[in-house]
């Protein structure tokens, strides 16, 4: 029973991680670098959603506006800071993204202050199914997460943009030769990646109830773990990786020790990577 309960909790946490991981990994597929400022998209999503909710919009509307806004910000950040460095290799981009993370996180703190703020979701008692508690907002989170992942799947499989994104991810040079405008695909990818990040941030806010300027930066670590576990650049791998990391964290807290729950998730990650150096779904190098 405890095991079932832990699995239920792990799945919901995993859903939040999975959504965020898909956003991160999509951008990686096209740009080939891990964006350390991705956590700030989560933070922005949560804070913008709160802002829109505070001026009187309902949460769903506020959420939609917020993720769209984060998508646009994502394109702006990429054009201003990343695109000029695209041909300079991995490290300049990594460092620049750390710089961007510093800037965004602290701009948020300047405006919103440092004290945690409550995210306006109602407090609800759980549904009880056969002695297992299922928190209601977890159902919402799981539902939204599944819908988001389905949307990503449809985007990649059935739309022209998705096909172009995969083509650029597989072979940028070849895609260029075939007449795919890599600039437009790049913009679209950043938009989608940041948008999903914003959505992940809202789900994270629902999960953790409170908002703080460093929330995304802190969460980034588990998102990285999920992306790597699934195989970097692979959206489906990221989904699986996210769920597994969520489960590992909750199982670790229950069966190993609460104060080692992060450590346990990382040990799982390291063990998987030792067995499969390119992650579960064999991502790109």
């Amino acid at each position, binding site marked *: 029973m405890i095991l079932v309960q*832990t699995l239920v909790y792990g799945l919901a946490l995993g859903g939040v991680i999975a959504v965020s991981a898909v956003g991160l990994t999509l951008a990686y597929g096209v740009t080939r670098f891990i964006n350390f400022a991705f956590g700030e998209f989560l933070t922005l999503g949560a804070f913008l959603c709160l802002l829109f909710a505070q001026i009187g919009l309902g949460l769903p509307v506020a959420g939609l506006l917020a993720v769209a806004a984060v998508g646009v910000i994502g394109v702006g950040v990429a054009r201003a800071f990343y695109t000029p460095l695209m041909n300079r290799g991995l490290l300049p981009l990594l460092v620049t993204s750390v710089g961007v993370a510093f800037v965004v996180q602290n701009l948020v703190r300047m405006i919103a202050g*440092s*004290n945690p703020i409550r995210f306006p979701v109602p*407090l609800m008692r*759980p549904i009880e199914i056969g002695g297992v508690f299922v*928190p*209601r907002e977890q159902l919402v989170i799981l539902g939204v997460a599944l819908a988001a992942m389905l949307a990503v799947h449809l985007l990649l499989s059935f739309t022209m943009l998705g096909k172009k994104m995969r083509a650029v991810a597989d072979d940028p040079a070849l895609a260029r030769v075939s007449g795919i405008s890599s600039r437009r695909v790049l913009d679209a990818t950043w938009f989608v990646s940041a948008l999903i990040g914003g959505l992940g941030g809202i789900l994270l806010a629902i999960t953790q*109830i409170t908002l703080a*300027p460093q929330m995304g930066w802190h969460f980034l670590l588990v998102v990285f773990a999920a992306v790597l576990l699934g195989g970097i650049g692979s959206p489906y791998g990221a989904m699986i990786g996210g769920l597994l990391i969520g489960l590992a964290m*909750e199982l670790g807290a229950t069966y190993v020790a609460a104060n080692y729950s992060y450590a346990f998730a990382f040990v799982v990650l390291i063990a998987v990577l030792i067995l499969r150096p390119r992650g579960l779904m064999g991502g790109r190098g």
Partner: protein
Amino acid sequence: MTAFARGAAGAAMTAAGLLTGGIATAQEDPLRIGLLLPFTGQYAWVGENVQPVAQMIAEEVNGSGGIGGREITFVQGDTEGVVDAGTTAAQKLINVDNVMALVGPTSLSFSGSKNLIIDNSVPMVTPTAGTTELDRACQDVCFRTVPSDSLGGKAIARAATDAQYLGEGARAWENPVLMVAQSPAMVSFLEPIERSFADYGVEIAEVIEFTPGKPSYRAEVQEALAADPDGIVLVAAPEESARVMTNAFQSGYEGGWFVTQDQTNAEYIELAGAQLVDGIYGLEEVASEEGQELNRAFEERYQDYSGEEVKIFGTNTYDSMNVIALAMLSDHMDDGEITRATLAEHIRAVTDPGEGKTQVTSYTEGKEALEAGESIDYRGLVGPIDFDDWGNIAAPFGIRQVQDGAWTTVSVIPASALN
């Protein structure tokens, strides 16, 4: 010139340019007080909560003509919640900004700045470091206006195990669980609470230490609930406390809660939501069994000043700043000069109890008494503020409970009951 020399020279010039900026302003007249606190990073809320209260007192001082005509100003020393940044921040405050006294540091930053503070004899009056690690850490210059966690822990155990402190119709806890966040400011509650419960004859069913900063604590809460507790003592920062309590609510928990003085403020009710915290117990340092009206008056005054509720460390900061300001005034009236070395002595002079001393509860009261030639004993919001040899305070505790969306005092534990 080698490439390295060029780089080093560049760095030195940058530093020098910045330093001269520092010198120019440091030679001005104001009395500088350093806020050695985290303003960024995970604990950024600490600095954000302390500074406005300190400023409110500074305005009171400056509005009444300052101290010998000199105004009090603040310099931020951002410790970033990291040890080495705490050290460099303290170095700047002490060596460059020449601060007279420090408000702060937190438990974590104390480890990196302790030697600097002692070697330079900079009086520190910290409102934020309750850690038991400071119980016997430094004499002469270290003071704190927050009781040691060993006292707070004892008060929680005393109240939870004795129905007379829990208000009408309440029952004493028989099967409590203790949940503690693993951060420097929190873990020092662990041992005192555990030991005190045992002293009062109740075994803690389960002790759970958890990692701060996790998005949810469902597994931890599940573990706590597995022990079927009638009450949970929760020691964590506001953010994690709200998360743990929400997750417990979502898991169907209906038992009692006890939080530390850090959460016993209106701000926490707002953060966690009134529905969630209804009926929980909290702790408050009070000056005396009757002295709570001072705390209520402060709450009103602060709200008028800032438009916000009193937040965590608000009352402690109020006392810390009053002590520093009164000591400065006393020092100035003594010989017209204020130095770090003499300031520490005057901190004792204005707080130690004694025959014939006038008891004061604010800077303005104290100023009047001092100017009338009396000697004073400052009594604060968090207790009588009588420092022991190691700069610790002892205080009675008010036990408070959230009723109808506001904290209400249900009992007071006299200091004598905690021996």
